């Protein structure tokens, strides 16, 4: 796969675009602030090719010069599209970074200036026959040795990546688990095809709490985002729905708000990293909307604060704490950085 030399260009609407040779899905920002890196903020991009051969590329973004620079050396092969990519949340070192990817297994990579080395492949099946591919994972930012993965075998596995071993495995749902999000060092939530959002506490593995169930029974919930600035709130999206459902974990089963302004189904959600009541969502209507959640709501529902229209359906959205002024979206072959 050849990487075309890309010059990112500044569009009139202050967005920076990177065009990739293949369609993109997974995307991740490095947590290392860009000021200590020469090249800028590292962004990992996972391809979406419906084939065995897929790739993960690293590009770097410099917010000063507004350039996205590809790194042909920082590119690895990945079997089938990676379902999620994520950098280590608290990396202090400027020379190397840790990248995790989910797909058939949870893989860890070390990203250095000029190369990516595979570090480990975390496979929790005892026999080679049974493997449970992962739909998503989340890296605990309070306890960075902990990664939680969600799988189609209805389980969530908690890994201790320093030891490379499974810390625990929970049968989280009755159907495939589609997303997982950490709230605190030992508390995580997951969504599933069975239509429920459940919260788990590792100290009490016997119990979980359902905090929301989709109104039509068995409507899968596809994505989950936990507001890191205000742990009371979570957001989730349903299959084939244009609604973003905001939940208050203190009031189970009753959503606090349903944001319904997308004109087609929603694909991705991300809470603002620096504000507790802003959330961004993107969907098939090619729009990315930023919402400000009000203290009181008008009778017609909540309107977004601002909007952006991309060229085609937006499949991925990332709003990183390392770059709170920029929102990254991915649609078809392109990755765009939008200034908030």
């Amino acid at each position, binding site marked *: 796969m050849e990487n075309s030399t890309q010059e990112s260009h500044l569009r009139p609407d202050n967005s920076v675009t990177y065009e990739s040779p293949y369609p993109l899905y997974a995307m991740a920002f490095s947590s290392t602030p860009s000021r200590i890196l020469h090249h800028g903020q590292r962004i990992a991009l996972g391809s979406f090719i419906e084939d065995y051969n897929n790739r993960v590329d690293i590009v770097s973004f410099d917010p000063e010069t507004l350039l996205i620079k590809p790194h042909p050396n920082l590119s690895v092969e990945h079997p089938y599209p990676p379902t999620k990519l994520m950098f280590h949340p608290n990396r202090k070192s400027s020379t190397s970074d840790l990248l995790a990817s989910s797909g058939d297994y949870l893989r860890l990579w070390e990203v250095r200036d000029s190369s990516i080395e595979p570090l480990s492949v975390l496979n929790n099946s005892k026999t080679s026959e049974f493997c449970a591919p992962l739909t998503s994972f989340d890296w605990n930012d309070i306890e960075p040795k902990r990664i939680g993965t969600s799988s189609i075998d209805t389980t969530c596995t908690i890994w201790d990546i320093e030891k490379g071993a499974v810390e625990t495995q929970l049968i989280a749902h009755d159907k495939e688990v589609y997303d997982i999000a950490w709230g605190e060092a030992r508390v995580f939530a997951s969504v599933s095809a069975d239509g429920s959002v459940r919260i788990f506490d590792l100290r009490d593995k016997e119990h979980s709490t359902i905090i929301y169930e989709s109104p039509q029974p068995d409507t899968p919930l596809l994505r989950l985002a936990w507001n890191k*600035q205000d742990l009371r709130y979570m957001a989730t999206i349903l299959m084939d729905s244009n609604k973003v459902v905001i939940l208050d974990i203190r*009031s189970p089963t009753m959503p606090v708000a349903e944001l319904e302004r997308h004109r087609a189904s929603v694909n991705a959600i991300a809470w603002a990293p620096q504000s507790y009541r802003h959330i961004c969502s993107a969907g098939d209507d090619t729009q990315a909307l930023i919402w400000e959640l009000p203290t009181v*709501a008008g*009778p017609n529902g909540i309107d977004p604060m*601002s909007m952006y229209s991309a060229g085609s359906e937006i499949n991925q959205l990332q709003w990183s704490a390392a770059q709170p002024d920029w929102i990254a979206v991915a649609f078809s072959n392109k990755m765009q950085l939008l200034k908030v």
Partner: protein
Amino acid sequence: MASGLHSQERVPENLKKHLAFAARSIQWSYAIFWSISARKPGVLEWREGYYNGDIKTRKTIQAVELNADRLGLQRSEQLRELYESLSAGDSNPQARRPSAALSPEDLTDTEWYYLVCMSFVFDIGQGLPGRTLANGQPLWLCNAHNADSKVFSRSLLAKSASIQTVVSFPFLGGVIELGVTELVLEDLGLIKHVKTSFLDIPCHVIMNKSNIGVGSTANDNNIAHIALDTKFSPLVSCEQLEMASNSNSSDEFEPHQLEGVSLIVDRGMNYAPSQAQSWQFMEEDFSNCVHHSLNSSDCISQTFVDDGKVVVPPKSDREHENCLQAVQENNQTKLTSLDLQNNDLHYQNVLSSLFKASHQLILGPHFQNCNKESSFASWKKGVLVKSLKPRDRTPQKILKKILFEVPRMHDHELVESPVSNAVKDAAWRPEVDELGMNHLLLESRQRERINDQFIILKSLVPSISKADQVSILDDTIEYLQELEKKVEELESFRDLSESEARMKRKSQDSVERTSDNYGDNRISNGKKPSINKRKACTIDEVELEMDNVAMKHGSTDDIIVSVNNIDVVIKIKCPWKEGILFEMMDAVSHLHLDCHSVQSFTDEGILSITIKSKYKGSNVASEGMIKQALQRIAWKC
């Protein structure tokens, strides 16, 4: 405001009159005074109350028409008496009570609500009155009838009574609670009014501006006038109220739309958007609001359904921040005193750990949309939210592929079972704190059991190579069939040696049965008696021949089914058992075959049947099915 944690028994003697006055002056449905119980400290109980709502059946003994005041007091008295008699547990209350006493049928729903309230007891810190007392702050509950019962335990009662607004505030060592069947928006001036009314000498006061004024003095028109006379004309007609004309709420209420409304005094405050009260949005409540034709789109404050939420009119943002801090802290400590049920304890622990651990940024940076560099354009209201015309593509296509298809790409041999055996040993299965999950749990346990069985099957059958369920089943079927063939072979060998032995001692009785005995009227033919009855020597030969023939086939069981259009010819050869012929015929008829000819004979324990039949109707059994069915019968021992 009186902090009510230390009980002052400075309750005025004519408390009832005060309550009456309060309820009537604001035209609310009831007023209750909760006070610390003398018998059980730390607990709030009903002390005194006044009912001012709708009445169904009036029962008085006096012929004289009382004034409204007296009537109301009397009614409240009667309700209290009814409560006492009911709670005394009289089995036949009618007999005991005097004729003019109320009985339950005489009560409206609202009265009933008022009555049941008398039975309530609250711990300090629990329930609406309890929380009010603990916080020392008023609580204003809109849409009480729709509130969560965790917040307002009497919400169901309120629903039947149509009590929509409940307000409680600490006063004089206890809590005063007021309720009304209308939806009244929060107004602290009202509370102040009630409080001041207690301090004044009742019955003779004409309330003037200074007593009611609250908040901003920016607009003199804000303050409403109430002229009261000794007669307590019940209806404070709305025209007398000058509605606040400030920006926020000016359009909210048109006088004739609300009956018996209380003071609506505009506080003249603008709630700056950076106030970070915890926000709630309940769609149901909005529809209610709409029904009540409140058409303000901006500042509708909805159900303050929150634990111990403080309603404080801030004078400035800074002050509000401090208050907010208090709220937040309150929230965190309050969590432990939430009246959750037992099975929520676990979740409660989860919540408390979460909130302790988090450092909440209460005020985030305010996103200003005047940022010209932003890639985002500000949202235009009124943009038609038409859904995009669905193109040929499926919605959420890539997302669905990532979640549904990509994982399955990895291993096409993937066992469909949710949990592998190895995983199941190590995995925890959390219990879900929700009702109604049982069927799902049962389902998944069922699946687990099935998977277990597959694992076992795989271990039993040596020839299984692949791990998926289909392959396991296929291999198992093959293996079984092989084993059956082997068994047949071995059995035939055994029979052969047995029959050789038998030939030496000829007996006739065991074989002399034919299909006659079973009276099957479809058998028209072929009751050839046992061949054995004929010449002995030839029989032996025949037997031997037959056995040889049988051996050639390799098994003593033989079922041949030949289908020709709708004609089906079945030839069966199997060891004879009592009743087997009948069973065979039964099976054949179940297969929707019309038999028109049956030939059968038994030979040395081997029954041979030839059935000629036709397919009956459209339900056509296949060759295999017929064979299987008959085989099953033939192999039964």
